[in-house]
């Protein structure tokens, strides 16, 4: 073939796929062996140690009052997180608003509720009834005075609620948890909002979008990628902190119920084990929920596809 050098041969077979001997990892196998032995010892202990009393656990871990406790705990967790996130978003917006009064108020709130332990808050809110018999809510100051002027009894109807009925255990516990959560969420949301490229704000502004529209449609959805993982942490912490409301007191909460079964039957240890298992189960459910939420907010990023694959490798996701 004189004159022409053909680098592309149309008829050439595709090159053979590489079959190489993969790198060996002997260290991994040693680790697996050690872990297997430890796991076997642990299971052996679980099964043979009489103190666990597995049949007692199984008989008692699903009693109606304990199922009721699960319900209360889940409800408290969900409600206080929802309220906490809403408060957190509002506080974060206030902090970043550039208005010194708003950001000062937000700072003060965060300062107070992060400083006081949740246990103290729970007890404090449980005893609020001592301070007032009536609470004025709805953000209308001087409503009574206005009512007097108009000759209407406003205090008894719209704007206040009797403290003794409102701040019963559940409400007091919920408030304590939600208000304190709001302070932590504020910092998480603020970090999330700061993580969004300022160019996004400019682009939205240049299109004539208002600040509120920009926040809701552009900044917050992108901030969610940073906000969701620590919020998952917060939710799990909250699930466990609901046991603090026993001090309000709210007694139909999960841990209190499990422990009382143990106390009454003088079988404390098995019910503590049952508690561990209940919290493990509930936390696992939360983890799965978090995975799907993260995936939703990762849309449009290169991460979206990867995360799916990673989770499947751990054996969680369905499908192939």
């Amino acid at each position, binding site marked *: 073939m004189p004159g022409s050098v053909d680098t592309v041969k149309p008829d050439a077979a595709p090159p053979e796929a590489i079959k190489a001997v993969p790198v060996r990892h002997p260290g991994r196998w040693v680790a697996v062996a050690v872990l297997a032995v430890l796991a076997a010892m642990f299971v052996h202990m679980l099964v043979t140690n009489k103190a666990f009393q597995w049949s007692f656990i199984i008989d008692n871990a699903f009693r109606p009052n304990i199922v009721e406790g699960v319900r209360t705990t889940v409800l408290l967790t969900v409600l206080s997180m929802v309220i906490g996130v809403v408060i957190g978003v509002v506080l974060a917006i206030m902090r970043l608003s550039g208005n010194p009064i708003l950001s000062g108020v937000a700072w003060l709130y965060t300062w107070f509720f992060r400083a006081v332990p949740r246990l103290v808050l729970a007890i404090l809110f449980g005893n609020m009834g001592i301070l007032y018999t009536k609470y004025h809510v709805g953000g209308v100051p001087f409503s009574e005075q206005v009512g007097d002027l108009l000759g209407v009894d406003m205090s008894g109807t719209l704007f206040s609620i009797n403290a003794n009925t409102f701040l019963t255990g559940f409400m007091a516990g919920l408030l304590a948890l939600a208000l304190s959560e709001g302070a932590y969420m504020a910092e998480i949301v603020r970090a999330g909002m700061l993580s969004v490229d300022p160019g*996004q704000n400019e682009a939205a*502004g*240049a*299109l*004539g979008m208002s600040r509120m529209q920009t926040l809701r449609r552009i900044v917050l959805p992108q901030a969610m990628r940073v906000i969701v993982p620590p919020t998952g942490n917060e939710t799990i912490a909250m699930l466990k902190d609901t046991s603090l409301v026993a001090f309000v007191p709210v007694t139909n909460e999960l841990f209190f119920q499990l422990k009382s079964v143990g106390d009454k039957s003088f079988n404390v240890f098995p019910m503590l084990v049952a508690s561990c298992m209940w919290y493990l189960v509930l936390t696992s459910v939360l983890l799965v929920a978090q995975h799907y939420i993260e995936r939703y907010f990762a*849309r*449009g990023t290169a991460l979206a596809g990867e995360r799916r694959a990673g989770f499947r490798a751990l054996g969680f996701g369905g499908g192939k």
Partner: protein
Amino acid sequence: MSEPDGAAKAAGTAGPMVKAEAVHKHFGRVEVLKGIDLEVASGEVMCVIGPSGSGKSTFLRCINHLEKIDAGRLWVNGHLMGYRQKGDKLYELRDKEVSAQRREIGMVFQRFNLFPHMTAMENVYEAPIRVRREGRGKARERAAALLERVGLGDRKDSYPSQLSGGQQQRVAIARALAMEPKLMLFDEPTSALDPELVGEVLEVMKQLARDGMTMVVVTHEMGFAREVGDSLVFMDDGVVVEEGTPRDVLADPRHQRTRDFLSKVL
């Protein structure tokens, strides 16, 4: 919007699209714009060149009031940007009114600034739906047509991260056009692109110029300036050093500073 209607309209049709009078801007103690006087006629394509840090981006951002100017006056389509004048007094406009003024002005950024959590389509119809309160159906139709126009009819459902730089910038142009602006600002629209992707973006901009859009383009693409620009402005150190037709300024600059700059970039 809330201006005396007759005056604004008259100014809008007869006067220049952009009129800057002694525009000053400083950041802290650094004076970035030191008195800019410029006029851009309706339908004109003005290209702006100048060394980095000379205040080109800042000036563009002043035009649509992303930056507040410290002295001087700036009108777009007859509207005094950011303020209402009554007698000798200036009143700051509220956010809402500033947003309304910005709707007449499209802006394209060096780094695209597409919304990464939205598809190309969603990027384009977001503002029409939220800001102009357009119906979803109509907004989608227009968005599809705009993406077609910038040659991305087949990438409607791609996220920005799945598009090349050139494609992203074309989506950004379509997004700005969706608000049907009377003026388009381009801040170095091709500077962040790989060389082989510059052409496709410039092509879209040329088409836009041919369609009669008023454009202010900060660019280092001298070929584009020569071919498409009606006027060329050379800025340095916060002032307009030289202004003229691209042919004149590029071939026969009158100022030493212009000559020095051109000798570096040409």
